[in-house]
């Protein structure tokens, strides 16, 4: 089966390494994807506060475009995943929203029949490919690298069907199959503050800091994320948060970078050079040689 692929805006900007590494994982596991033709911004969390109805119409255009050739859509970004799911739910639950969105799509010659499954890469890897298959394809085991699994909010809440909303484990299982050791991380679904760092910095920095401290305290060498905004916040503002409280030094990678590394991808192919907190000492310390 070929999946429709919806990268979203962040994966073309600050989250480039997410896309690069995810596509490397897909290649290694022979997962075929088609990028949705002329996809547009999903509206993210921000558009909802301007105009909810319009944000559903924006998201629905992508669903309608994907539906022309596919049934399953991969949305790697947490905000995109949530917004596309929410739009589907609301079109089903509220006839008025359904009517407004259907008419809007009609005005640009599209229609949506509710035949798309919006899915996260974690779900695809775990349920369509399977842990056993992934384990059998590992070329460079992660050698007990200590990883704090950070899921953030919008992947598991409120619509996720593939994992537990309070204690998700899908990323844990995938990375363990690659030879990583998961450390206890009770804050795994706590919010990183989203865009709060930009708008209300003192609050944003607090939230970021305690996530980092908790990971470091529990012995994590790396934090693994599934969301471009979480990755950006935890990494880019680590120094600033440390200056306000006390310093931390934990590299923050996408789960797909760790997976791709284990599946034998080269570091520059999966954006390891794009990080701000150096990762080489951690990897060479664990004797994780690049293939």
């Amino acid at each position, binding site marked *: 089966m070929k999946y429709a692929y919806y990268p979203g805006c962040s994966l073309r900007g600050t989250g480039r390494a997410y896309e690069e590494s995810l596509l490397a994982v897909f290649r290694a596991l022979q997962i075929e994807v088609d990028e949705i033709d002329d996809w547009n911004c999903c509206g993210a969390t921000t558009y909802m506060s301007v105009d909810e*109805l319009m944000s559903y119409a924006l998201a629905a255009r992508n669903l309608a475009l994907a539906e022309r050739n596919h049934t399953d859509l991969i949305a790697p970004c947490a905000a995109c995943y949530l917004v596309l799911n929410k739009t589907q739910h609301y079109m089903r639950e509220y006839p008025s929203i359904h009517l407004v969105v259907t008419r809007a799509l009609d005005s640009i010659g599209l229609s949506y029949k509710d035949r798309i499954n919006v899915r996260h890469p974690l779900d695809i890897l775990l349920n369509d490919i399977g842990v056993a298959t992934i384990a059998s394809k590992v070329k460079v085991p992660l050698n007990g690298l200590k990883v704090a699994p950070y899921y953030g909010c919008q992947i598991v809440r409120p619509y996720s069907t593939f994992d537990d909303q309070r204690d998700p484990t899908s990323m844990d299982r995938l990375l363990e199959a690659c030879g990583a050791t998961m450390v206890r991380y009770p804050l795994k679904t706590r919010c990183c503050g989203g865009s709060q760092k930009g708008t209300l910095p003192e609050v944003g920095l607090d939230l970021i800091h305690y996530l980092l401290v908790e990971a470091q305290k529990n012995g994590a060498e790396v934090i693994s994320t599934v969301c471009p905004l979480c990755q950006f916040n935890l990494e880019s503002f680590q120094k600033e948060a440390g200056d306000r409280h006390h310093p931390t030094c934990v590299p923050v990678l996408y789960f797909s970078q760790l997976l791709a590394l284990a599946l034998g991808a080269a570091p520059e192919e999966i954006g390891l050079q794009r990080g701000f907190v150096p990762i080489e000492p951690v990897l060479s310390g664990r004797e994780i040689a690049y293939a």
Partner: protein
Amino acid sequence: MELKRTVKFEADRDPEFARWVSHTVGGERIRHCLQCGLCSGKCPLSLYMDYTPRRLMHLSREGFKEEVLGSTSIWLCTACYACMVECPKKINVTHLLYALKERAIEEGRYPRRFAIPIMAREFSRMVRGRGRITESWLVVQVFLRSAIWRMLGMSRLGLKLLRTGRMPLRMERIQRRKEIATLLDSVATTRKELAL
């Protein structure tokens, strides 16, 4: 000495606002709220709020419009959905917070140069014009209009992003840009027709 009454009278309520709350998307089940406080307990931002989510639920369903729309809570919510998942009465707390934020922006109830409504406006403008967001340009727009002095502090981060190829200078856009304007205009027309 300034004397201030700390308890509200029934007459301070705005019944129209209470009606609006219980008819808005997300607010339908608000009458079922038990005031159990799980939402406040789970909220990672409640410790910065003037009215925690539990109090906000109560104030909004009773129609205390001034307190609700003037509270810091609606701006602090990051939409992490922790409250909604925990609510034993399945109230869509997060969605209601969105509705309150939308209403506060509509009514212009925020400090001048406050970054959140500015970001919301610039975000929607960029989507309408180009179909996609280029994060770096969005951030520049927001700072220009809210806190230009903070741009200086951000310049080091900007350089780092540039160096690691995470800040494209070319702005992203879709090909059929007209479709976005048509789509959004259609929503506005239907909404007017149906008086939503």
